[in-house]
């Protein structure tokens, strides 16, 4: 199989979409947080917590959709805790986010071991199956790639335009963006920046939780400790690549889904004789290149990483 054969194939594009969805959800999560002026380095931990909440709930109740709900709720809860720390107590966003990720990771591993024990064969659930959309999935090429996906994927298709509409066409979206650019000015016109940032972090947490849950409810069907392995950090770079805009972020996530699908196929194709770990490093190399190239052009929200102190004049 040559390099060209790898990418000129319906299976490749379908895989790229599948791999892009969790990245896209994570990227939209980070976008919402950063638009409100908060850098959320807790995203990696929120995704992991969402993955476990989704898996454990689905395992116990047998309902995948209850798993989705649990992931959304737990993510939002961690978002609220993060908001307590960085919005109300105004702690440093970088180290607090890392702390939230570390604590969440420890607690998730602890809970998983407590609930599921240590077994040679990890417990599994039957993940979502793909649903071909009538008519649309019959379109040649585009159909099987885009419209034979999981229900969650279709929801994400709708989420991107919905978020774009919210941010750029509604008063609440304008309020959120203003808080991220200039919280003082926002307060001057009657917006409460503190409340706005708390809500933004809760929404970001819910989206990150869903991103994590997608990985085992739709993709893997079981929970592993390495299930997120840096996907949350990659989303930090994808927001920059997507210039803090939902559609551009979707493009960035798709590009990375394709990189991931490419390295997976390269591994299994056997056309290149190299240790497979080199391919695993590829998405991280691509991310590093993205931040280097984009830093020059990117315009982050002006008040990103600046705590808002209502008493400061």
């Amino acid at each position, binding site marked *: 199989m040559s390099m060209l054969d790898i990418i000129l194939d319906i299976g490749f594009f379908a895989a790229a979409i599948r791999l892009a969805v969790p990245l896209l959800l994570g990227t939209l999560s980070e976008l919402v947080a950063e638009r409100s002026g908060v850098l959320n380095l807790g995203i990696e931990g929120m995704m992991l917590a969402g993955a476990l909440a989704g898996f454990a709930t689905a395992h116990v109740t047998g309902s995948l959709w209850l798993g989705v709900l649990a992931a959304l709720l737990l993510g939002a809860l961690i978002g609220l805790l993060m908001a307590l*720390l960085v919005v109300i107590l105004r702690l440093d966003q970088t180290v607090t986010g890392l702390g939230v990720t*570390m*604590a969440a*990771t*420890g607690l998730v591993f602890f809970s998983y071991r407590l609930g599921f024990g240590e077994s040679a064969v990890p417990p599994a659930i039957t993940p979502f199956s793909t649903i071909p959309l009538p008519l649309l999935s019959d379109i040649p090429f585009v159909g099987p790639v885009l419209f034979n996906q999981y229900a969650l994927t279709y929801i994400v298709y709708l989420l991107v335009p919905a978020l774009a509409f919210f941010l750029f066409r509604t008063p609440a979206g304008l309020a959120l963006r203003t808080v991220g650019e200039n919280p*003082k000015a926002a307060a001057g016109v009657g917006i409460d920046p503190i409340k706005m940032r708390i809500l933004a972090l809760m929404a970001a947490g819910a989206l990150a939780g869903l991103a994590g849950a997608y990985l085992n409810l739709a993709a893997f069907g079981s929970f592993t400790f390495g299930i997120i392995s840096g996907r949350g950090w990659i989303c930090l770079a994808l927001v920059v690549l997507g210039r803090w805009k939902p559609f551009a972020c979707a493009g960035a996530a798709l590009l990375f889904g394709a990189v991931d699908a490419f390295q997976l196929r390269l591994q299994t194709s056997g056309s290149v004789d190299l240790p497979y*770990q080199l391919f695993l490093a590829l998405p991280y190399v691509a991310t590093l290149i993205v*931040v*280097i190239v984009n*830093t020059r052009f990117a315009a982050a929200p002006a008040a990103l990483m600046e705590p808002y102190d209502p008493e400061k004049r």
Partner: protein
Amino acid sequence: MRIALEPRPPSRWREVLMPFAAIAASLVLCGLLIIIAGANPFQAFAIMGEAAFAGKFAITETVARAAPLVLTGLAALVALRTRFWNIGGEGQLLVGAMAAAWLGARGDIPVPLLVPAMIVGAALAGAALAAIPGLLKTRLKVDEVVSTLMLNFIVMYLMMALLSGPWKDPVTGWTDSPDILMDAEFPVFWAGTRLHLGVLVAVIAVIVIGIVLKRTSFGLAMKVVGENPKAAHHAGLDVGRITFFAVLLSGALAGLAGAGEVGGTQFQVIASISPGFGYAGLVVAMLARLSAVGVIPAAVFLAAITTGADEMSRQTGVPFFIADAVQGLSLIAVLVAMTLARYRIRWRPSPKREAAS
């Protein structure tokens, strides 16, 4: 209602006690987790304390485990003095370990130079890796958080590729690097324990970094750059250069931690050579409130939690990962404590509309 932070009058003792309050708070949370896991927290803590501190073997084991944490803690701290978030300690440690293992297995280095070569090589490797995010930040303004995190993953996968490729044992197929030479093993100070040269290196590093930060013009320059880069620039300091050198120093310290693990503990590179020492270094630096001397008790605390949790898990069945949870929780707790030491929390009735100022 709204919450306001009101500055407190500065208090020296409050600042000193605050990390202890944070540790106490994280231990209380840890106790709750132990109860959830169905064990008696007092009994569990007793087992942890005994496993970490009771007797010669326990204490020396905890100290040996603290050595890499001291070095990664110093690494995080040195970079942070110039406001550079070096989250790449993990990757810098790994390249240091690989350099030490490579040098230590070579037959062509004279024996007396073998151990020094491993130490210097590891420090250089760590510094060289740190130079990448250092240059990206100071020259191209690339955010160091993402670049150092990505390099951690890249280095980890390169190491795995090396272990399952060129370094794989052709006979057994084990994915470990070749053992270093007997002469390359770090000398041990106390027979029957693991108090090896790497521990001494860590202690010396604390003294040297303490002196550099407090007594040298470079240390002062770092402080000025970290506290007020604009003022530093106006005072004629080359902010980029000072930051870059601090980052190199940071990478070298993390690399040294890798040398200690290879030369003193594992005698080869294994896939699990670092159980997150690099990330834990950030917790150590914060618990130490960015003071060089404070790094030692902070590192011993985290090391004791790990060795203690190991034994406690064996005896009570409480999952070992409680150690990771405590690590993260103590980081958050110390950040909260730092704020509470400086500010009082006040509830204020919120005016409906605040006049723009």
